């Protein structure tokens, strides 16, 4: 069945709620309204008010309550209306959820959903990609799918996982990307990257919406006789270092691409690991492509200049191949 990225997420949540009565949802406007993006549409009717909880505007309480419910054997899925508001529940995530297992052996099986990313003219507070903060927080798992198949499979895996998972959903993919999704139950394992497209001359390591930017560039490079491999990380923490390194060892050249701003982003981590562990294989510097270090601007010409795109990738890829 061909479904959108959004519908795939919706199905993932829905099926887990059907299979496991301990799964429940909480967040702002997720019930009657079905969520700002309609990811939870229909769920209130199906599962009732106790399992689809419309909360006050309280991100910290939403995350906190999810944690508390998880201690009682539940598997809460909390929605941040936009990923930009996750900073309002930050302490609960990084200090409470992330550390309980380590500190006192108390697992926190929660999922925090966070619609992230730009390209929708949302401006500085409806466009951010804050994944790197969480990648720097041991105890969390961090996910960002790029396809409908992964979106559903990762959501189901995240809900079943016994650790706290921050699940970034790229808003620009919600209705733009469609894909085949099996009707039978399946999961996509957390912590495993995938080779989105095979290639020989260079590797681009990326995730989320940028996978499609990379794919666009790869098509063009193909015409030029350049074969670019695309590694889709899918899970950002724990990082599937092996898949990344295997690709780079094969191609000897690597570009890390993400939509989040450059400095302190996930790209630095990936680049550092490549240099540290595949230095001998490298036939050129590991390059990074990311948004510039600014807030996400609102006006279309500014946002267009801000976002990484195929053109920027092509330029660096051609340079690196020639290196």
């Amino acid at each position, binding site marked *: 069945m061909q479904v959108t990225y959004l519908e795939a997420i919706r199905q993932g949540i829905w099926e887990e709620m059907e299979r496991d009565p301990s799964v429940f949802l909480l967040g*702002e406007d997720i019930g009657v*309204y079905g969520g700002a993006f309609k990811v939870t549409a229909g769920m209130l009717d199906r599962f009732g008010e106790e399992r689809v909880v419309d909360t006050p505007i309280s991100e*910290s309480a939403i995350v906190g309550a999810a944690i508390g419910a998880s201690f009682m054997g539940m598997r809460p899925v909390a929605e941040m209306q936009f990923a930009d508001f996750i900073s309002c529940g930050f302490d609960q995530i990084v200090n409470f959820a992330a550390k309980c297992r380590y500190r006192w052996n108390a697992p926190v099986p929660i999922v925090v959903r966070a619609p992230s990313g730009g390209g929708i003219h*949302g*401006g500085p507070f409806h466009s951010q990609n804050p994944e790197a903060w969480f990648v720097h927080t041991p105890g969390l798992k961090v996910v960002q799918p790029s396809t409908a198949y992964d979106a559903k499979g990762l959501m189901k895996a995240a809900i079943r996982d016994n650790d706290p998972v921050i699940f970034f959903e790229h808003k620009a993919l919600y209705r733009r990307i469609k894909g085949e999704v099996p009707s039978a139950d399946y999961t996509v394992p957390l912590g495993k990257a995938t080779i989105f497209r095979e290639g020989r001359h260079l590797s681009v390591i990326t995730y989320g919406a940028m996978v499609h930017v990379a794919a666009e560039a790869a098509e063009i490079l193909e015409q030029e006789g350049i074969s670019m491999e695309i590694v889709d990380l899918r899970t950002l923490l724990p990082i599937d270092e092996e898949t990344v390194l295997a690709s780079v060892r094969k191609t000897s050249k690597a570009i890390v691409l993400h939509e989040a701003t450059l400095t302190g982003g996930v790209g630095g981590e990936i680049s550092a690991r490549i240099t540290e562990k595949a230095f001998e294989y490298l036939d050129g510097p590991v390059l990074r492509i990311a948004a*510039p270090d600014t807030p996400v601007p*609102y*006006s279309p010409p500014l946002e267009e200049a801000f976002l990484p795109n195929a053109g920027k990738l092509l330029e660096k890829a051609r340079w690196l191949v020639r290196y």
Partner: protein
Amino acid sequence: MAALKPVSPMALASPQRCDTAGVANPEAALSRRFLYYMSLMREAEDRIERKLYRQGKIVGGVYVGRGQEAICVGAGLVAAPQDVLFPSHRDLGLFFIRGVEPREVFAQYMGRAGGLTQGRDANMHMGDLNRRIVAIISAMAAAVPVAAGAAMALKQQRSPNIVFVFFGDGATSRGDWHEGINLAAVQKAPLVLICNNNQYAYSTPLDKQMACRDVADRAPGYGIPAEIVDGNDAWAVYEATHRAAEHARQGLGPYLIECKTFRMTGHSAHDAGDYVPKDRWQEWGAKDPIVRMEQLMLERGYASRQQLDDLHAEIRGQVDEAVAWAEASPFPDPSTLTDNVYEPAPAPAPTVEKA
């Protein structure tokens, strides 16, 4: 609904009041100003939401204050020019009161360089320190601690000025709301807190937002006074805000005003508000603050129907012109993308040859 309260002569004598001293009939003059700003706000937002947005000319989301205009206008006209305003996302009238041009507003909504944020932020996320208006960030109630700090600073500076911060019923659930008010209360900072209780936060009705009846029920927990007013009555809002402002200016600390009103739209331009029971639209439609102000003015002889029609025509003309200007105005230059993240480094001092 609260009856129109007559303006006490003492109140009118206060220098912080709207400048109507020396005017033959100050009540009539102020009524005209209420009507003007409320109507300008309505006309501008209608144009944005019902026309430009549908034409695809607006970039991003649109949140309007239809039906709630009496709140920001009634409160805003209490503020002295150097008082500091922290509007929320349904308080466009405050910008007009502070002299922001309609064209700056339309350019803002269209992402143009001439917008108040030069295309860097969206819609109501605008501000201007020169006009003493602080731009919100998206996170509801984040402005409350910031406003508390501004008020603390004014107190420290022995300024006669005070701070007004606006927010919705939903925002009161945020931790920042609590922390900000509590700090301001302990510090007796001159802060007027204005809640537009429009009974919904996006799709969430009041009883899913709070278990108390009124937002005002929270004031005793901060040791501050509160009052509840008819938020569709600009005069009532004005009077209450005036009391609050006097309280703050006298060094007595924060004061909360809860304005009961209703959001006469969906949450934003893409939301039809289907979750609102139909009869509530009707009930509250009948309380339209602009219609009420007109009626009052007609009844009291502050204006004739013709004068009111002329006013609306004038406003429409202003808005037409502003929209045309904004549409013709340029988008920001992408080469400015990375400017002004930080203060630019000062130009290096000219090197002088050593003697």
